[in-house]
């Protein structure tokens, strides 16, 4: 028994329809040795659901498609659960031995491979199944099938063999636990979230919502609050929290700029402050810090709004919207997504770039090119296809995100195939000067040939960055040659179409709804494609916001007051459920919902942080078995490990 491997036990957040109660989440971090995992399962949903697959299998005579079990990897992988479940019900005290093997978690991934294999062996042993099956009567079985149907939302096909009359409507959605934070009205004050940027004189620069007339008084107040602490306390105010109304205000003062974020969404001060840092970084990327100081030197009444371009305001709005309304892990995880391609394909692209750089030595002398990227752009998200960088140098993800936001704007307003030459300050690289970016659109493809839905359009773009402001033609020539070479070698086919996009159902990780997996050393992450609501922007936004909030809760459950993880290695589960009485109230209050039975909220998530990786995972509604979730988590990790060289850029073309 390895005592030093410990894990944090579930912290349970009991949430109401009207709002989450995060206070409960801090209640207990029970540290336990993994030798005796606590299986605090009640005989309700989880066990019930998980027992279904073997039941189905043994009833093969009644079921039309008895190959279902084997053809459906997810059902198969759920079998292991049943053995736990039956053991729990019959001999709860003796189960720990075997379980400890299964649940032992260790950053070394190979272990979980072994574990998976064991499982598969079990599955192929029909006798086990029959014994388990015997434990349940026919009636219970039917009930269980119904319950399964209701609980496993992500694979409606798993219902194919269900011959029951009752076929519940299933959705692959997850419920919203955080109803409180939707906008109440259309007035300026009713927004659940807002950002303000102003000068140290209290003059407005930007706000996400609100007309001038509405926001200008607030700018004065914000300025006064910040100044009060600077003058009277010689300190900078960080936050104001109103616990009763769950409002948080976060401040950042970087003379001559003051920023404030307001949120009613239960975000922590640290989250808001990092968001403010991105907004400030954007301002700096456009004007740079030295220039900013010069503008305000002896002119504290300077009106920065008229110095910024329309594009700047568009981009600030775009960033605010990403931060508030979209699942935007690039920022939350401080990592980038990579365009999936085979290892040797990417290597060929990188070799081509590298060789061209050497051959073109005369035209593009060393030092001209600082950094290069081939990016894929789809649904407002950028993915790295290839990276050209000097050995030992790389750009900060925030800097790249700022570049992305600029390119996004250009994409939206572009007119044919354009080339751009943009001065941009990368604040995390050097906040006092500009670098120059050559941006060239390489190609556009539509993965859906029938429709012209913009969500299916994939663009590819080349970015070459130099510190020399007269390097445009050198970089242009290099860019053209590179593109010609990639085309003539047919290497462009590797990245113009996303051939390897994966869904959550491609990984044998039962009951998992969505996940994000980050490898720290690459500063890159992967997550499955979002499969629902892709044709409805509003629904998609709502859905992404939901995911975002679940992930936010997960992350906040393991960080300290400074926003840093409380330990180098952490495994934590979070559980969201709703209280019965509230449900009734809600149903009465909403006439439309009276016709339907709303799904009961019973959500579980897992966060796993180690020095090598971070895994964030959200389960389907109704799942509350930690053992299964942990196994699924391990399978995701092994899957990511297996395909690491496809999912992540490991080296890039270095020079």
């Amino acid at each position, binding site marked *: 028994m390895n005592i030093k491997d410990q894990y944090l036990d579930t912290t349970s957040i009991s949430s109401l329809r009207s709002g989450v109660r995060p206070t409960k989440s801090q209640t207990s971090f029970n540290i336990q040795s993994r030798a005796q995992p606590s299986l605090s399962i009640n005989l309700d949903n989880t066990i019930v659901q998980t027992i279904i697959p073997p039941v189905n299998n043994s009833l093969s005579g009644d079921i039309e498609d008895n190959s279902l079990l084997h053809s459906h990897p997810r059902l198969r992988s759920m079998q292991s659960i049943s053995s736990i479940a039956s053991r729990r019900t019959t001999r709860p005290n003796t189960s720990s031995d075997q379980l400890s093997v299964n649940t032992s978690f260790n950053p070394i991934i190979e272990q979980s491979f072994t574990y998976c294999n064991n499982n598969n062996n079990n599955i192929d042993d029909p006798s086990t199944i029959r014994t388990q099956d015997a434990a349940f009567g026919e009636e219970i079985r039917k009930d269980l099938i119904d319950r399964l149907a209701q609980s496993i939302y992500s694979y409606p096909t798993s219902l194919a063999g269900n011959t029951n009359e009752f076929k519940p409507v299933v959705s692959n959605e997850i419920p919203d636990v955080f109803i409180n934070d939707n906008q109440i009205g259309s007035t300026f004050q009713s927004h659940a979230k807002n950002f303000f940027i102003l*000068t140290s004189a209290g003059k407005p620069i930007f706000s996400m919502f609100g007309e001038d007339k509405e926001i200008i008084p607030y700018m004065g107040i914000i300025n006064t609050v910040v100044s009060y602490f600077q003058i009277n306390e010689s300190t900078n105010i960080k936050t104001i929290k109103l616990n009763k109304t769950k409002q948080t205000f976060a401040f950042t003062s970087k003379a001559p700029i003051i920023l404030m974020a307001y949120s009613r969404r239960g975000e922590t001060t640290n989250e808001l402050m990092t968001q403010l840092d991105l907004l400030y970084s954007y301002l700096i990327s456009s004007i740079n810090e030295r220039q900013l100081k*010069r503008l305000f030197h002896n002119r504290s009444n300077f009106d920065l709004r008229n110095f910024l371009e329309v594009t700047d305001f568009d981009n600030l709005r775009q960033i605010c919207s990403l931060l508030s309304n979209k699942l935007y892990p690039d920022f939350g995880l401080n990592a980038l997504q990579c365009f999936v391609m085979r290892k040797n394909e990417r290597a060929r692209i990188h070799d081509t770039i590298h060789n061209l750089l050497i051959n073109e030595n005369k035209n593009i002398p060393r030092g001209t090119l600082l950094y290069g990227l081939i990016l894929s752009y789809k649904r407002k998200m950028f993915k790295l296809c290839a990276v050209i960088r000097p050995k030992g140098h790389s750009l900060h*993800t925030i800097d790249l995100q700022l570049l992305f936001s600029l390119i996004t704007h250009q994409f939206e307003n572009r007119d044919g195939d354009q080339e751009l030459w943009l001065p941009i300050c990368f604040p995390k690289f050097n906040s006092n000067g500009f670098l120059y970016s050559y941006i060239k659109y390489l190609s556009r493809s539509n993965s859906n040939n029938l429709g012209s839905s913009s969500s299916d359009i994939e663009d590819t773009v080349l970015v070459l960055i130099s510190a020399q402001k007269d390097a445009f033609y050198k970089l242009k020539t290099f860019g053209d040659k590179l593109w010609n070479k990639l085309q003539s070698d047919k290497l462009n086919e590797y990245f113009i179409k996303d051939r390897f996009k994966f869904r959550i159902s491609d990984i044998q990780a039962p009951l998992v709804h969505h996940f994000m997996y980050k490898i720290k050393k690459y500063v890159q992450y992967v997550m499955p494609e979002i499969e629902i609501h892709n044709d409805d922007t509003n629904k998609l936004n709502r859905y992404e916001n939901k995911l975002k909030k679940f992930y936010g809760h997960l992350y906040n459950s393991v960080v300290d007051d400074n926003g840093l993880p409380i330990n180098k290695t952490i495994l934590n589960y979070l559980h969201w459920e709703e209280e019965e009485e509230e449900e009734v109230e809600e149903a009465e209050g909403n006439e439309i919902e009276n016709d339907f039975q709303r799904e009961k909220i019973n959500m579980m998530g897992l966060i796993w942080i180690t020095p090598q990786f971070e895994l964030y995972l959200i389960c389907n509604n109704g799942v509350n078995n930690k053992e299964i979730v942990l196994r699924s988590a391990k399978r995701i990790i092994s899957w990511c490990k297996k395909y690491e060289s496809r999912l992540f850029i490991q080296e890039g073309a270095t020079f």
Partner: protein
Amino acid sequence: MSTRKKNILKVIILGDSGVGKTSLMHRYVNDKYSQQYKATIGADFLTKEVNIDSDKIATMQVWDTAGQERFQSLGVAFYRGADCCVLVYDVTNTKSFQNIKSWRDEFLVHANVSSPETFPFVLLGNKIDADDSKKVVSNKAAQDLAASLGNIPLFFTSAKTAINVDTAFQEIARSALQQNQNDADAFEDDFNDAINIQLDNDTNSCSC
């Protein structure tokens, strides 16, 4: 440029407690007057769109500060970056008139303005609706003061009966805009902040 935002003019109103700063502002912004006196705590912020010389539109951000001594520690914050400073005294209160000079000095000390000599001030003698018997500050004394402070504009106003308030604020807006543009013009664009980078030198690298 059509997308250009309106200029924001920061106007700060200073003067002793009870001279009618808040009343003046409310008369100007909302065209309302309340007989009741309520001391301002810290500062009030009001906004009004102004049309200057019938062709320029700006947004005036009025900072109505508290006259009471105990709020003065925040002065720096309030004064910083003002485009115009309005000094108000009460024509029925000699003390408030005598203090105008110190209010002005206080402002210049903290405001960090680019050139104190040319910074626009406007002097307002408020409460001229009062009985002549109560008036203790003569018009002559006020004109002399305005002249000695660098020929600054002077208006005799009444927030209560709306005498001269709009006229005074028109002048305030004009001075503020003038100041704002002078400062903006003094700036020369300079995008020559290219970074000198040697690739073989590792000092610029970012460890991420």
